[in-house]
């Protein structure tokens, strides 16, 4: 009996997978993969830079330090950028925005998507059809396009960006949740709960949700990658939040003209975003494999 199976057994007898042991089993399986370990390491490093970096910035984010685009400017590690600001400081300061916006939008998208998916799966019939059709329609739009359309007249405000990115996450989360929930809805303990007269919210939240947590977790991870990518793309195109605030994506765009002569203004943020998204992707992949393995081990 593997660790994973042992972790799941106690829950099976009562007809419900107890969240703690089930999740523990999955986590153990996930961490066993070297992919996930590398991914987690990358994520930890980059999130560390984004969150703690600002404490180590030698200069302010908008402080003038030397002539623009000078790679070997005195007293700087990586030279100056388009406006003569310190590249290294701006790099240390530039991760917070993108990370914060991405995490918040993903969480909101997850929450709304999960609710929609659960309701659709539980209700079946008419409501299910309408909800899923609407999801398909929203799905029909390339995310970046939707974001650009929103930003045109509503402006480059944080709430606009957060809401629109969350909105783009909802359809897929809803689909995944619904798919996973459909398998659970049929089970006996749901019928038992209904017979006991449990309220629908209770059933959805306490009975069904914990059992779809696995696929939802993987999806959450994937959505995070896409959120970072979308917010990054917006910033790169010049529609990030705040003018001249240090921001990795905007830095990439601003310092592009000097790519041949003073490349670090562009290279540092590119590597940062690249490693961050790859890290999150690796973790998602590891989680996905672990959960697939878990499902295979679970007897039906």
């Amino acid at each position, binding site marked *: 009996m593997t660790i994973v199976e042992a972790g799941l057994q106690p829950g099976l007898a009562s007809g419900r997978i107890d969240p703690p042991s089930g999740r523990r089993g999955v986590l153990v399986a996930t961490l066993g993969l070297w992919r996930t370990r590398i991914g987690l390491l990358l994520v930890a490093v980059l999130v560390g830079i984004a969150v703690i970096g600002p404490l180590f910035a030698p200069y302010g984010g908008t402080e003038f330090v030397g002539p623009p685009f000078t790679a070997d400017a005195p007293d700087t590690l990586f030279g100056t950028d388009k406006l003569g600001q310190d590249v290294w400081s701006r790099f240390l300061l530039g991760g917070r925005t993108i990370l914060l916006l991405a995490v918040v939008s993903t969480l909101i998208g997850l929450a709304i998507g999960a609710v929609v998916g659960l309701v659709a799966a539980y209700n079946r019939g008419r409501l299910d059809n309408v909800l899923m059709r609407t999801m398909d329609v929203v799905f029909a739009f390339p995310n970046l396009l939707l974001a650009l359309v929103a930003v*045109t*007249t*509503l402006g480059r405000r944080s709430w606009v960006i957060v809401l629109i990115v969350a909105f783009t996450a909802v359809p897929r989360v809803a689909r995944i949740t619904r798919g996973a929930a459909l398998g659970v809805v049929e089970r006996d303990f749901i019928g038992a709960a209904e017979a006991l007269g449990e309220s629908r919210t209770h059933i959805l939240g306490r009975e069904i949700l914990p059992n779809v947590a696995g696929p939802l977790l993987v999806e959450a991870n994937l959505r995070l990658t896409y959120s970072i990518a979308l917010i990054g793309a917006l910033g790169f195109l*010049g529609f990030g939040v705040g003018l001249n605030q240090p921001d990795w994506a905007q830095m990439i765009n601003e310092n592009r003209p000097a790519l041949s002569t003073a490349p670090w203004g562009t*290279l540092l943020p590119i590597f940062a975003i*690249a490693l961050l998204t*790859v890290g999150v992707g690796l973790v998602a992949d590891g989680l996905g494999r672990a959960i697939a393995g878990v499902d295979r081990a679970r007897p039906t």
Partner: protein
Amino acid sequence: MGIAKFVLKRVLLGVLTLVVVSIVVFALTQALGDPVEAILGREAQPASVAAMREELGLNRPVITQYSDWLSGLVTGDPGISYTNGVPVLEVLGDRIWNSLFLMLVSALVSIPISIAIGTLTAARRDTAFDSTSSATSLVLASMPEFVTGLLLIVLLATNVWQVFPAVVRIRPGEAPWVDVGALVLPVLTLTLGVVPYVSRVMRASMIEVLESDYIEMARLKGLPERTVVWRHALPNAIGPTLQVIAINIAYLAGGVIVVENIFNYPGIGLALRDAVTDVNVPVVQFIAMLIAAIYVVVNLLADVGTILVTPRLRTRLQ
């Protein structure tokens, strides 16, 4: 005739989707947000605000604005550009063709490569080639396109090697194939956005096909493995992947937005960014609807194509 009815239903669904998309686009740009405030700023004089509103036709009831816009779209008159009073179609003209050209070339390059990689990794399952390919796919799929594109520039155009140009130089009126060398990096960026997904699905489909009876039969007949894989297995493995191929071609319609802006390629992606910056609402709306239409049409063709190619689904319709 089950198929005809199915196609009709799908077409109607596609039209409905576009209508809903048009409502969303219109709402975001003209109903929920105020173009005049976006252009003039919040501290503008009431007199200028009123004047501009009148000039742009924004003081009419929202429903009228929407229906006028929609009927204009359908009849081929998507409005007048806010910035220079020139009809939108005239402003965009060549750019639409340029973008379609870029999409077409990228599709023609990426799909065969993906199919080939998918087939090879399936035939050589669990070898070093397979694992490397899988790891590379994962990395490429995780990175945003603008990162991939810029890394390519750093690698091949500006910093490591200088083989290709970092920007495209096509003057207005010139055909996009004037400078083929400059097209390499944009097409490569888009290709790297497609290959990980399509090759992965192709691999899965291929693995399943390779385990089927008729392939076993072909092998028992003594056919060389190469013939078995490429002549017998491949055609059967493609059917299930058509849907994913279509989704990825449709993805190209959105992907060009970033790629054109990275390489300064004169297409609708570049125009879109300028239009958003200038709050040029009619242009933004039109490009949005155009891309959405491409998306819907490609997906529709994929749905119909899959049905036609998969006999099992065809009989289910009849």
